[in-house]
C-alpha cells in the first residue's frame, strides 16, 4: 500500500475517535464493576476530569531521564499499536498505516510499553516499583506465550502476516470468523488476553491493596496522566488486534464499538467474578492451560 499524505489526518481522526470512545467505555466498565459491588460508581465524565486535573497539576518531580521516558514509551506503545493496525476493514479513512507485515510490528508494540515502563519505574527508585515491575514482567511474559502461539497459528492458517488480509479472509458471515474456523487458537489467545488486561485475577503486580499500585507508585501529575491516557488507548488497541484476528474485524464504527465493548466485557466479567492469583499461580495457569492450547492450535493448522 502506497503512502499518501492524507493518511496522517485520517489516522489522527481514528486516534481521536478511539480515545473519546475509550474514555467512556472505561468509565462504563468501571461503573459496571461498582454496580457489581453494590455501589453507584463514578460519574460518566469522571475519567475526563481526572485526566485534565492530572495534566493541570503545577509541580513535577523527576527522578532522571528514564523516569520521563517511561510514560512516553508506554503511550508510544498504545498510539503506535492503533496507528499501524487497520481499525475499520475496507475503509480508506480508518485503514491507518497498515502494511504487509504489520502483524509482526503489532506483536512488538504490545510488549514495547511494558519494557519502557520497566525502565521508568526502575529509575524512580521506589522499592514497590521494583517489586511490581518484577511481578508484572514475569506474568506478562507468561501471558504472551499463548497469545503469540495463537497468532502464529492464525497467520499459518491464512498464510499471511498482514492483518488486513487476515480480516479479508474472515468476511462473509460469522461462521468464517477464526472463532469458528480455529476455536482452539481463540481460546488460547483469550487466556493470554485475560493476563494482559491488568484485571483480576491477574492484577497482582498492580495490587492496590498491598504494594501501593505497583510500578506507577512514584508517577504523578503529567507522568501519571500520560499513563492514564495509555490505560485508555492501549486496551482498545489490543482488542482491535483480537477483533481483527479472531472475531472478523469491523466494517463500520457501530460494529467496531459493539465488538470492542463485548471483548472488553469478557475481561471485566472474569475480573468481577474471580479473586486474584498470586504471580506463581498465574504463571502456572498460563503454562498449564494456555501454552498447550497454543501449541495444539499450531499443530492442528
Amino acid at each position, binding site marked *: 500500500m502506497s503512502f499518501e499524505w492524507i493518511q496522517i489526518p485520517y489516522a489522527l481522526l481514528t486516534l481521536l475517535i478511539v480515545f473519546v470512545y475509550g474514555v467512556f467505555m472505561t468509565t462504563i466498565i468501571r461503573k459496571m464493576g461498582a454496580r457489581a459491588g453494590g455501589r453507584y460508581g463514578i460519574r460518566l465524565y469522571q475519567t475526563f476530569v481526572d485526566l485534565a486535573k492530572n495534566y493541570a*497539576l503545577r509541580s513535577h*518531580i523527576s527522578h532522571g531521564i528514564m523516569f520521563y521516558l517511561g510514560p512516553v514509551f508506554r503511550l508510544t506503545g498504545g498510539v503506535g499499536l492503533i496507528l499501524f493496525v487497520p481499525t475499520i476493514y475496507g475503509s480508506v479513512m480508518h485503514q491507518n498505516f497498515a502494511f504487509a507485515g504489520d502483524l509482526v510490528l503489532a506483536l512488538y508494540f504490545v510488549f514495547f510499553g511494558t519494557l519502557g515502563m520497566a525502565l521508568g519505574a526502575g529509575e524512580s527508585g521506589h522499592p514497590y516499583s521494583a517489586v511490581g515491575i518484577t511481578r508484572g514482567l514475569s506474568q506478562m511474559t507468561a501471558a504472551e506465550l499463548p497469545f503469540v502461539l495463537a497468532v502464529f497459528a492464525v497467520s499459518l492458517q491464512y498464510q499471511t502476516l498482514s492483518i488486513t488480509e487476515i480480516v479479508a479472509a474472515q468476511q462473509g458471515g460469522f461462521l468464517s470468523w477464526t472463532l469458528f474456523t480455529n476455536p482452539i487458537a481463540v481460546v488460547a489467545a483469550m487466556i493470554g488476553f485475560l493476563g494482559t488486561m491488568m484485571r483480576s485475577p491477574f492484577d497482582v503486580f498492580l495490587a492496590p491493596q498491598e504494594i501501593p499500585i505497583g510500578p*506507577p*507508585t512514584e508517577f*504523578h501529575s503529567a507522568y501519571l496522566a500520560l499513563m492514564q491516557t495509555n490505560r485508555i488507548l492501549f486496551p482498545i488497541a489490543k482488542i482491535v488486534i483480537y477483533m481483527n484476528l479472531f472475531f472478523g474485524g469491523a466494517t463500520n464504527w457501530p460494529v467496531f464499538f459493539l465488538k470492542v465493548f463485548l471483548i472488553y466485557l469478557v475481561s471485566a466479567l472474569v475480573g468481577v467474578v474471580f479473586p486474584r492469583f498470586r504471580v506463581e499461580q498465574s504463571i502456572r495457569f498460563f503454562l498449564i492451560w494456555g501454552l498447550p492450547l497454543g501449541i495444539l492450535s499450531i499443530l492442528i493448522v
Partner: protein
Amino acid sequence: MKDEKYTPLPRRPIGLDREELKKRTVTAPDGQTFEVDPIRDYYCQDAPKAHQRSYIKIVEDFFNWCRAESLWILGYGTGCGAIEMRPLMTPRFDAYRYGIQWRPTPRQANLLMISGYLSVKTLKRAIRSYEQMQNPKYVVGLGSCTINGGMYWDSYNTIKKLDEYLPVDLYIAGCMPRPEALLAGFEDLKKIIKAGGGEGANKYAENFEWYKANQKSVIKDWDMPDYNW
C-alpha cells in the same frame, strides 16, 4: 551471687545524630570507595516553591473546577476519624459518586485528611506525606481534635491546633463527624477550590520558615531534612 552495680545501657542518639544519618565512606563490591551523606544524597533539600496560577482566568477556573471534581484522597488515617472515612467507599455512602477517590501513594493524592488527634510521632509522618504531594494540595482537619485539641487538649503527646503545622483548608467539626458530615464537608471544600481558595501549598511555601519553626518546636527527634522531596 555477686552484687553487681547496675549500669544503664548507653542512650541511643536521637534526631540528626543517629548513626545511620551520619556521613560515611562506603566500599562498593568492585572496590570503589565513595562518600555517602544520607540526608543530602537520599533526599532533595530544595525549599518548596510557590507556583503561579495560569495567566488566563478562564483556564485557571477550568483547572480549579477539575481539581474540585477530582479529589484524590491519600489513604492515610491518623486517629479515630480514619474509621469514619472507610464507610465512604462502601455502597452505603459511596463517595465515588462525587468524584472522590482514594490513592495509596502521596505522589498521586491531592487531599490529605488529618482524621482526628495527631500525636507528635504521627505529625512527622503527616508532614512527610504532605510534602511529597504535588501542588495544588489540600488539607482537611477532621474532628475537634484538629481544631483545638478536643478531648486531648492537655495531652503531653498530641498537637492542639493543626493549622500551626500544616495549612488547613477546611475543618469538619464533630467528635467524630459522621460520614454524612464528611460528604457535606467535601462539598464545601469543592466550593472553596472552585472559588480559587485552595492555595494551601503556596501558603505553605511562602510561610515555610514559620511552619518549620512550629513543627520543630514540638518534634524533638527531628531526623529528616527540612523539606522532603
